[in-house]
């Protein structure tokens, strides 16, 4: 069965329903600012749920949430599971092997089979950019698709929890300098963060990395590009360190983890170039000694662990809002 947008103008944002409300969450790009703010505000109210005796609210009771992870990730899948359970949903985890051709079953065949099991919401992680849009075009009108990361393209819930974190510590987006450091080229976290921060009004968003790890067109997204870490984090209020994947560390993009750390690793000395009250963030999991020094990761300016806590509340907010549940 085709989604409601199948016959609509091909350029309408497929994430929003006809009333402009959030129906799927696939990418931050193109999301109106009020929707982003509403998600962050709603997450605020869910923060307190975890502190209560009874750690759940009945907003998604009776709904079935399927975690569909075509790319392995225990930590992300777990946080989505916790979030869904705290909303009283029934959660089902499916770890499909990384190769979509491993069983000869196509992506859409898999979706069709699961839809027949009365899924209300799919949380999808896939290795290929754009996969959630294909899924969203394909599911029944009442089904919601939440993107848990697709290829290099987007990781919207991560960007939302990053925005939540920044607002928690810094209050006002409108006078911040935020530096994103690392492998921007391959990072869905970076792309989503850039969209979120620019939409929320951050006046200076910086991307820092070697030329081999910077994608084309960053300036057109409103980003200032730096190839030297010193210049990139000087005076920054927020530093988001990105994970450098193993496969990038050999071969044509980078010579070694060692040389990367020398030039782009966040050490206490480098951190001093930022503002004294700057916060250090990381989407996890960290490669200690590659992009970030342990003393920084565990130090007083690091908010890496609170990010994880905030992540659950933000994901609860996303699921609640997408499911058209009333405000709390």
């Amino acid at each position, binding site marked *: 069965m085709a989604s409601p947008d199948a016959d609509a103008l091909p350029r309408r944002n497929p994430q929003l329903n006809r009333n402009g409300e959030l129906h799927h969450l696939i990418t931050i790009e193109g999301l109106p600012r009020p929707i982003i703010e509403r998600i962050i505000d709603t997450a605020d109210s869910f923060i307190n749920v975890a502190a209560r005796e009874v750690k759940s609210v009945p907003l998604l009771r009776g709904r079935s949430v399927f975690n569909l992870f075509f790319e392995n990730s225990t930590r992300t899948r777990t946080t989505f599971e916790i979030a869904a359970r705290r909303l009283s949903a029934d959660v089902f985890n499916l770890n499909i092997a990384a190769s979509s051709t491993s069983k000869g079953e196509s992506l859409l065949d898999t979706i069709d089979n699961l839809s027949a099991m009365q899924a209300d919401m799919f949380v999808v992680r896939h290795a*290929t950019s754009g996969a959630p849009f294909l899924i969203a075009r394909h599911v029944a009108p009442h089904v919601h698709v939440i993107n848990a990361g697709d290829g290099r393209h987007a990781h919207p819930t991560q960007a939302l929890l990053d925005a939540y974190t920044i607002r928690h510590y810094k209050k006002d987006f409108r006078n911040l300098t935020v530096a994103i450091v690392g492998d921007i080229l391959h990072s869905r976290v970076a792309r989503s963060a850039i969209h979120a921060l620019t939409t929320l009004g951050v006046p200076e968003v910086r991307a820092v990395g070697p030329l081999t790890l910077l994608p084309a067109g960053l300036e057109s997204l409103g980003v200032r590009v730096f190839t030297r870490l010193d210049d990139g984090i000087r005076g920054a209020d927020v530093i988001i360190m990105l994970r450098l994947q193993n496969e990038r560390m050999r071969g044509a993009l980078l010579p070694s983890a060692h040389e990367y750390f020398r030039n782009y690793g966040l050490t206490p000395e480098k951190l001093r170039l930022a503002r004294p009250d700057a916060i250090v963030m990381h989407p996890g999991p960290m490669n200690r000694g590659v992009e970030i020094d342990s003393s920084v990761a565990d130090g007083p300016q690091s908010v890496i662990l609170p990010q994880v806590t905030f992540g659950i509340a933000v994901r609860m907010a996303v699921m609640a809002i997408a499911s058209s549940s009333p405000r709390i």
Partner: protein
Amino acid sequence: MNLQIARGRVIDPESGTDRVVDVFVSDGRIAAFGDAPAGWVAQRRLDAAGLVVAPGLVDLCARMREPGVEGALRVEMRAALAGGVTGVVCPPDTDPPLDEPGLVRMLRQRSREAQGARLYPVGALTTGLQGSALAEIETLAGVGCVAFAQTGCLPRDKSVLLQAMRYARTFDLALWLVPVEESLAGSGVAGAGAVAGRLGLPSIPVVAETVALHTIFELQRATGARIHVGRLSSAPGIELVRAAKREGLPVSADVGIHHVHLIDVDIGYFDSNFRLDPPLRTQRDRDAIVAALADGTLDAICSDHAPLGADDKLLPFGEAAPGATGLETLLPLTLRWAASAGIPLDRALRCVTSGPARVLGEDVGRIAVGAKADLVVFDPREPWRVTGDTLVSDGKITPFIGYELEGRVRYTIVAGEVRHERQPGGAS
């Protein structure tokens, strides 16, 4: 048969003719204009009032899927006729590739039986298209191959390309090459630029095309081989072709019809109908393509016809097969380009008639007394919606699916025979 095409607006790009005049055909050739030849009696008369009579389209790249899919040739030939295409050049990337004389003979025989458009097979330059050993190109030329190609990208081993050029030059055979340096294209699926950067799609840098072109032209200077480069996509690439022609190198070039219209932004929300090879590039590249068609740097527009099925495209963008159906949209999209760019009809039609015919070196693509009677009669303003039902080809995948286009073929004539006809508003 004696065929009269009456009252049509005859447009012949090669001579610059654009006038309303009757055309008289006999024995498969154009016999006269205006008045019937003495003693000539019409066996059939087509009323072309309000319609355009042009040379049948010559498509420099359309995949017929044979060898490979049994019976596909007949269907795609009907699609060609429905699109007003009277000459189809099919590339050698068939299954198996066209590297053996027996396969070429079989293909030409099937084409004759299909009574569709004329078929001009391009043979494989290397055995199995593997890029390592020369195919028997002189023998293949003897059984009808018009040129020899390496599809997809340049051979990895450039010494093979060098020797292939020398060998082809020996027999004055032309090489058709796709200007892509595989090692630079990598696993890219979209044109490098802001759009691919934003969408997180692995990208194909422009240097994949320019380095390939530099290689081709350097080897061409060393060997004197005749080269045709297929499917240009970038402004810098086009500039290299322009310079090569100015230098006097024997090179010709074409572009796919989709790249005349579409750019990377059109990918939208990862619409895999826009997954093409070469990839769609930026506004600036499209502008360069349009300018190159105007100044002759690009000799032809082809359809790059690839009949794909829904299964090939119902995949995430990067996993979808590249390509689109094109035989039936080539004419209306050419007309659409002419209208939006303000180009006179005869100049636009040159890109799909006399231009490609000259690249081929075949005496088609023109309307003149004594020339072969390969003609298309079409209504330039008749609208039709591109749907699975209106498309004759087995390939229903196109970026323009659902679009209403203007320009519908009424009659397609090959060797003086009416091989396709459609009444206005009716089915083929």
